[in-house]
Structure formats: C-alpha cells, structure tokens
C-alpha cells in the first residue's frame, strides 16, 4: 500500500478537526440580521393599535430626531421586562415608537396599564407584514432610526438594563 494512501486518512482527519475547532471557537449565530441597517425604513402605514394613541407611519420616523422603534407584543413574555427598561429610556428623553405584532387592543391596553407605557405612537401590525419588511424575525426587537428615517442599528432580543448606555450611545450617534 502506498504511503499516500496510508496517510490520507490522517490528513483528512486533520482537515475535519480544524473545521470543527473553528466552529467551536465561533459558535453559530442563529439570529437573523436585517439587511436594512444603513438603509431607509421601507414605506409603511400602520393603523393605531389603541384608540387612545396614534398609529405609526414611515414618515413619523423622519422627523429630524432619532427614534427607537420597538417591535413587541402583549403576549410576549420577555417584552414585560423590556418595557420597564424602555420606561427608563423614555425618562432620559428617548422617543420610543411601538409596533405591536399580532395583538388585540384590550390585551395591549392591559399590558401597558400593568407594565407602564413608554410609547409615543403604537402601530398595530396584525399580520406581521411590517415586522417582516423591517427584517425582524421575532419579538422583541428594536431599531434605532435616525432623523432622516435611516435604520442605524438593529437590536435582537430584549433591551436589558445593562444595554441602556449602549442604546443611548447609538441614539447619540444617530443624531
């Protein structure tokens, strides 16, 4: 048996192990990142999710000031802790708009009454169409949108208390 054949399995093994080590060192990122970062918010117009608050249009985001757009739902458990952190951001002067995904007005009202309401506007996205057009694949997610209506940053998962300085810095950069 030739030397090449005898050593081929060892060489193949080395190759496979190198690939596996690389994967272990860099675990899979299963998040779906929006391809819209750095691009303008796609045109949308969402009706008001609650009778007491205005709905949300793409034009509402290009007001010259940065906005934080929060994709959430009253049925989403992590959103309960997140909305309290959003309250803190609001108290620091952040403009927060909500997109309520597949929600019902009475559930949403109860959710906000119980956990606090940091939102300026809440659009009701009954079929997740706008959520998908933004490139968001779940709740909660948040987008930092600058004064021109351009998406600057996508935050996947709840904004936690520790994320507050980072979010504030992102909003500052978006000015």
């Amino acid at each position, binding site marked *: *048996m030739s030397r090449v054949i005898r050593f081929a399995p060892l060489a193949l093994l080395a190759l496979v192990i190198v690939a*596996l080590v690389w*994967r272990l060192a860099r*675990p*899979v990122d299963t998040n779906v990142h929006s391809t819209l970062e750095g691009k303008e918010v796609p045109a949308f117009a969402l009706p008001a999710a609650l009778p007491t608050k205005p709905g949300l249009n793409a034009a509402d985001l290009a007001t010259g000031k940065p906005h934080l757009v929060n994709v959430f739902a009253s049925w989403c458990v992590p959103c309960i802790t997140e909305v309290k952190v959003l309250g803190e951001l609001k108290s620091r002067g952040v403009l927060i708009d909500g997109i309520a995904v597949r929600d019902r007005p009475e559930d949403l009202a109860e959710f906000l009454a119980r956990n606090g309401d940091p939102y300026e506007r809440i659009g009701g996205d009954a079929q997740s169409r706008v959520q998908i057009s933004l490139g968001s694949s779940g709740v909660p997610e948040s987008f930092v949108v600058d004064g021109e209506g351009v998406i600057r940053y996508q935050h996947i998962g709840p904004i936690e208390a520790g994320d507050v300085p980072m979010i504030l810095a992102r909003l500052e950069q978006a000015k």
Partner: protein
Amino acid sequence: MIAETGLAALWLAAGLALFQLALMVLALRSEIAVARAMRAVAAVQGVLTLIAFGALLIVFARTDLSVALVAENSHSAKPFIYKVAGAWGNHEGSMLMWVTILAAAGAFLALLSRRTSERTLIAALGAQAALALGFYAFLLIASNPFARLDPAPLEGAGLNPLLQDPGLAFHPPTLYLGYVGLSIAFSLAVGALLTGEVDSRLGRAMRPWVLAAWILLTLGITAGSYWAYYELGWGGYWFWDPVENASLMPWLAGTALLHSVTVLATRGALKAWTMMLAVIAFSMSMVGTFLVRSGILTSVHAFAIDPERGTFLLVLLGIYVGAAFALFAWRGASLKEGAPFELVSRETGLVINNLLLSVVLGIVFLGTLYPLFVEALSGEKLSVGAPYFNAVAGPLALILALLVGVGPLLAWRRERRPVLAKLKVPALIGATALAITIILAPAMPILPRLGLTVAAYLAAASILPLVGRNPSRAPLATWGMVVAHFGIAVALAGMGANAAFTSERLAVAKPGDTLGVGPWLVQLQQVTPMAGKNWTAMEGELIATRGSGPITLKPQTRYFTNPPMETNEAAIQTFWNGQLYTVIGKPDASGGWQLRLWWKPFVTLIWLGGALIALGGAIALLGRLWRRRRGEPEWRRKGYA
C-alpha cells in the same frame, strides 16, 4: 448515599481502566502472562460502571431532587416510566450510559472472546481501556451526573415533553448499544494492527461483534425514525437532520464492515481495508456523539450548545481517531494481502458493495459538514437538506440495491457459471412493476418510480440463494442474509410508495365539516378538553370513512406545564395498505380548527423493512454462534454474513 456510591464506582472504574492499559503496555513490551488478569480487570470495570448506572436509575426513579441532574431534568408529577427513562434523556445521563456500554462491551470481549490470539486480545483490551479512560475523564471532569444541589429544590424542572414517550425508553439505549458496540471492532482492529496479526482468525473473531452492534444500530435507527414520524407530527420518517445523519454514518460504515469482515474471515483478503473500516465505523460513532453533545450543528436533537464540553469531546475524538489512523499509516505497509480472487467473484461483489457504501457515507458526511466548511472559508451561511441527499445518495442507493440481488449468487474466488441468467425472473418482475407504474401513475417522479421497480426486482432476487436447494438445510447465515436483503426491498417499496402516493390536506375545519384526503372522507365531530397525569389537552374527534365502516381518530394538542410546552399527538390508524395520519392544531377566531391529514399508502413497509433487516442480522448471528458451539470444521464455516 446512592449518588456517592455511583460516583465512587465511576472513579474506581477509571482507576481500573488505567491499570488495564498499563497491563497491556507491560504485556506487549515483554512476554508476561497477563491475559487472565486483564480479563478479570475488564470484567470488574464493567460491573462497576453498571453499578454507577444503576445508581443513576435509582436517584431518577426516586426523584431525588438533591441530585442536580434530577432537579434539572425530572419532576415528581411524571409517569414512573419517564422518571426512569429520563435518566438518559439528558447530557450527563446519556454520557454515563455511553460509558457503561463501552465498559460492559469490554467486559464481554474479555469474558467471551476465545477466537483471537492471546496477544491480540490483550492489545484489544488495552485499546478498549484507553477509550474508556478518556470518556471516564469526560464524565468525571466535565459532566458529573452525580453532582449534588444544596439546598435541594422543592420541585424539579421537568423533562422535555417530546421525550415523554415510550420511544425514549427504547430508542437511545438501542442506538447507543449499536454505536458503542462498534468500539469492539475498533479495539480489535487496533489490537491486531499493534500485534500484526491481521488474518482470517481475527475476521472470525470480529464478525459476531460487528453483527451484533449492527443489528442494534439498525433497530435503533428504525425505531428513531418511527418515533420522529409519529411524535413530531410532521408526517415524515427521515429529515436528513445532522443528528440523524450522525446515526446513519456509523450504520453505513458498519454495513460495509459487516460485508468486508466476511471476506477477511472467509478468504483472508481485504486486510487493510477491513481494519480501516473497523476504525472508521466507531470513529463515526464518536463523531456522532460529538455532533450531538457539542450542539455544533443546528438540529432538533442538539440539546445544548456547550463549547467547553464540545472541546473536550473533540480532543478525545482527535486522540483516538488520530492514533488509530497513525497506527494504520505505520503498520499498514506490513499487511500482506491474502488469497487472490478473479474479477467475477463473490469478493469483487463485496468490494463493489463496500465502495458504494463508502461513497454514500462520504456523501452524507460531506453534506452534514459542508455548511460548516463553506462558512469557515467564505463566511456564507447555507444549509444542506433533503434535495441534495435524495438526489445524490438516492441513485447510488438504487444501484447498490440492484447489485444486492447479484452479489450473493457469486461464488468465492471465481465464478464461471452464467449468473445473470438466474436473474431473469427478478428482472421480469422489476420490468412489470415499472410498466405498471408507468400505466397507473404516468406523472410519478423518477426516483420513486425507480425505487418501486428496484424493490420489486430485489424482493424476487433476494430469495434466489434459497432457490434450487433444500431450504431447511441451508445454513442459518444464508437465511439471515436472505431475510435482510428482502428487508431492503420491503423498505425501499415503502419509501417509493410514500414518496409517490402520499396525499396531504391542510385546512381549517369547524365541527361538522368534512375533508377529503386520498380515498378518505374525514369529518370533524367535536373538540373536547382532556387531562392526563402531567398535561391537559384539546382532543379532536374525527370520523373517517372509505367505502366500508367508519373509524374514529382522536388527535390531540397537549399542553405540558413542567416545562411549559405544547406538543401535537398525532392520531394514526394503520391499515394493510397504508396509514391515515391526522394532526389537530390551533383554533382560529371563528371556531374552526387547523387539521392536517395525510393518507400514506404502504408507509409502514419502511419500518417493517428495517425490522426485517435487523431480524436477518439476528438470524445470521444466531447461526454463527450456534454453529460455533457445535464446533463444525473450518471448511463448513465459510458462508454468508
């Protein structure tokens, strides 16, 4: 106390494994008679791991929440069978089962092996001890199943409801017995490479172990396939999921090994190739364990992503497979090929079988790891799924199935008779099946059509080895081969029929609505709440009719509380010619319910075929062991595997 006993038994077993390894080194360096001592040490090691595993079963059966593993994976309000089976429904417990089987297999080898030379047995037991040592270290350092919690929680976190199924009691143990049983072939190969005694005697010693592991692996995969089919509610039997592939790869290598070890045992040929396959088969088991336990690939089976444990297992994998491959590279040159054979011969048939199986193995291996390679090189993310595997492995599997009909007809060494003439009748049957499918279902895709054709041909061709001789005097091994090869035809027919004739209906129905699927009319009667020991459910009542009397099906959506999760319990009705598979989903606002209905003609043949393949293996194994007991002369032992 029980948990501590288990832990102590594990430490002792690890110590004995080290001792066993040292004995081997001593024995190979100088001619010291240690075989007896090694046999005893290996046996005690096996008993100790059984004690450890028994301790784990006891703490799970008692729901002893002061043991961290129990608290994380069990719950007092769980049916007893799932409390016990839950012992291996988690990372640490399943690794302990792995090690227990490894050590028990070593003990069996030590106690039962009479065929190998003393030196090769000593080397093989040393190799087995080296394997066990690494996995003991993994358990004791990185995955202690007996760690305590202080204070003990009042209640456990519960077991994933998908695992609360009788399937959990059988599928993992059978699969693991098969996976880890292949370690004996690995150790014997390593031992023989060390001593240089690669000959037909080794082949005969290795064959029953390979056969036994392969039978269990076949059963485990078949059972797992059926479990996924009814439990996950997707109506599919194979998903080309990375972890399914991880169980398929050792099976493919094991199947190739099973055939090549016969050549080694009977003719003393294919030495290097058989040793390589024996190493690869168990290496694939370790790769599978690594893929599942590291959570490195996205899969329904990957339980937790844990880079630390993954690294540990990868190091073990690298050491063992690397050492075996290096040994092969070093000693392979000294292997002299055995008896020559001509182009048309049983040997050539088995070489082609091995080549095709190896190519399929390569395809599955590449497809499973390809996304990882691509992302490493280009950063691009992609996934490889059923379209690739079916398109690439499917035709090769069909060619292999065609040749399965030919190989057993060939004589050893050289074949001078016109063998193909014997295949006239099977070929005619295959052609008839092809014609029927063209007439009855002109739009059928090519792969299922060929599958049904080859299945019809092989069903006839596989029994030819019994034709023209008195079946009652044919050796059991021949019977086993015929049954297993016939099983391939049966499974292939099931896969073809399922792919070609399945009808599916997905609709929202209100009570009173009737839906058609295949030949069936299914009416939703009502949906009622139900309760079990640790779940509540919404249960649909369906009445299905097809000409004759109606049957009732009751699919459920179950809501578990510990941990909170929903599962679909499909209601499946089996008939001689297929299965009616029904799933009930969520209600919509208008009072309708999502219903998913399938009519799957002859789908059960897939698992029946798998069971027949395993049964064939069992018959052959029985034949080998029984014949050995009767001590027949060498020349009679030549035969089929």
